[in-house]
């Protein structure tokens, strides 16, 4: 497995190789995310992920099947559904976070800007460098606040104006004011909500293209949750965001598009599957599938 080879430069270059610094495009003209004049939020947007018939397995167990959807640039896409329906599996497949799990495999295709994420030429490290992830449980490194944010840029050779970069990331993560006077204190001394925002700052400091958030607020108090939700609205101008959430109000508040996953049964097998995907408005107000309607109305899950 030589997936860590970052320099494979192929003619049909899958993901531009090497530690290329991707400049984040200036935000698109302010099209409000919600449907405007009956136009769907995504219509004018480029697809960042084009996922076709994705299925994921842990050994012989199928956790997710038949998932086909597109995720659009500079939108917040929420993934909702009952627990165990494969939300984490899905989102972790997008940046190959599950590669290290023995027996994990995917079938189908995930195209990221036209490049096959699981293609033989794709580089797992490079994939994750462009597609950052924030986890359910805040996981700051046992380092100073500054070093938490500066660590990855240093690795990537982004050493110029590092202090500025750290400051910008912390500002964008709405944490700067709270930590600017103690940047060199341990990150472990921060509150849970601050730690989670630090993890977001850490992720955006390397200027990824996509931010994946797996239930980022589920371990936090309501105030911290609200501040993370506010963040989503600002961050989507710079990043494409996919957020898994257990909390339907949260999805309704932050997401432009919502994908509803549910558990399906085929004989003895139970696996997650995508039931419905569309504008958040539609999913919450006029879903076409009765399971979606039941779920968003809180009738199960």
């Amino acid at each position: 497995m030589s997936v860590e080879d970052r320099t494979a430069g192929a003619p049909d270059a899958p993901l531009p190789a090497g530690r290329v610094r991707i400049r984040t495009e200036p935000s698109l003209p302010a099209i409000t995310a919600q449907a405007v004049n009956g136009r769907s939020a995504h219509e004018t947007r480029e697809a960042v992920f084009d996922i076709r018939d994705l299925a994921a397995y842990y050994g012989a167990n199928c956790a997710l099947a038949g998932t086909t959807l597109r995720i659009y640039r500079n939108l917040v896409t929420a993934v909702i559904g009952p627990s165990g329906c494969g939300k984490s599996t899905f989102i972790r497949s997008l940046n190959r976070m599950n590669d290290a799990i023995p027996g994990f495999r995917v079938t189908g295709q995930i195209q990221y800007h036209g490049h096959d994420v699981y293609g033989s030429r794709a580089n797992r490290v490079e994939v994750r460098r462009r597609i950052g992830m924030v986890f359910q449980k805040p996981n700051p490194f046992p380092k100073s606040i500054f070093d938490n944010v500066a660590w990855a840029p240093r690795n990537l050779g982004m050493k110029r104006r590092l202090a500025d970069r750290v400051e910008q990331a912390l500002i964008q993560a709405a944490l700067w004011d709270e930590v600017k006077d103690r940047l060199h204190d341990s990150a472990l001394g921060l509150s849970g909500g601050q730690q989670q925002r630090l993890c977001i700052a850490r992720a955006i400091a390397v200027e990824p293209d996509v931010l994946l958030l797996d239930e980022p607020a589920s371990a936090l108090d309501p105030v911290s949750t609200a501040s993370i939700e506010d963040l989503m609205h600002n961050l989507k101008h710079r990043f494409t965001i996919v957020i898994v959430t257990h909390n339907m109000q949260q999805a309704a508040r932050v997401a432009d598009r919502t994908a509803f996953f549910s558990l399906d049964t085929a004989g003895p097998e139970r696996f997650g599957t995508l039931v419905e995907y569309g504008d958040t408005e539609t999913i919450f107000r006029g879903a076409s599938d009765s399971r979606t309607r039941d779920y968003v109305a809180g009738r199960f899950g």
Partner: protein
Amino acid sequence: MLFGLCAVAGVIVVLTLVDVVYQLASNGSEAINRFGLGFLIHTAWKPGFNTEGAGALIYGTAFSSLIALVLAAPLGIAIGLYLSMMAPRRVRAVVGPLVEMLAAVPSIIYGFWGLVVLVPFVDHLEPGLHSALGFIPLFGQPTTTGISLLSAGIVLAVMVLPIISALSRDLFLTVPRELKEGAEALGATRWEVIRGIVLPSTASGVGAAVVLGLGRALGEAIAVSFVIGDVSAIHGSVFQPASTAAERIANQFQGPVNALHLSAMFYVGLVLVAIGMLTSIAARMIAGRFDVQRTIGTIY
């Protein structure tokens, strides 16, 4: 009841330690009175002339253990990293226990192995090392036997390797998966994760593991006695024969020339116990400073 039992066990441990020190000091009193603290720096060891000094022994002990650590620490940490983070599960399941078994091989067997395999090998190695690195005094003129500090250092390295690798593997396994995933999600390579996250968060524990390995090397007698030559001399070159404190006692305790000779060996023993205690305290301090004592405590 259980508390009483534990208290008794604790008292027994303390009493044993106190008695060990007492026995060494009282049996060594003749040498202690005669040589005083000068014993620690005088190098001549001539039992026939009533002249004994532990200087060369302490030097040989420190030098051979240092060689052992220089070889075994990086290798052991590398093995620990491999077993905890890189090896496929099957390899891990086979190699892990094998490494631990290395620690269960009796030291006399390492002595045999050293004499039969290592000493001739080192003998072949010496000329090459000397011609390549001879400008460093460490690699002086080759001798003709292979019996040397280097051989002793290598035998000791093999003996402490399982300690360092098994302990560091277990330490690396304690690094939370969330931390490693957090680093990977930022596009870090495996090496960056190791260098930036795994090693820093286990550094103190690994340091303590190395010092525990050192403790083992410092006190090893039998295996070393096979390959070091038991010569009381201080040489800069690793190709020269030498002696260590423990090895000297093992070699000469059976046939002391006179009472003073015997007493001097008890004194050497006392010095060795002191060195061992200092090492153990050092390990605790290194581990304790970073609050990983508990980890070390549970795995060692």
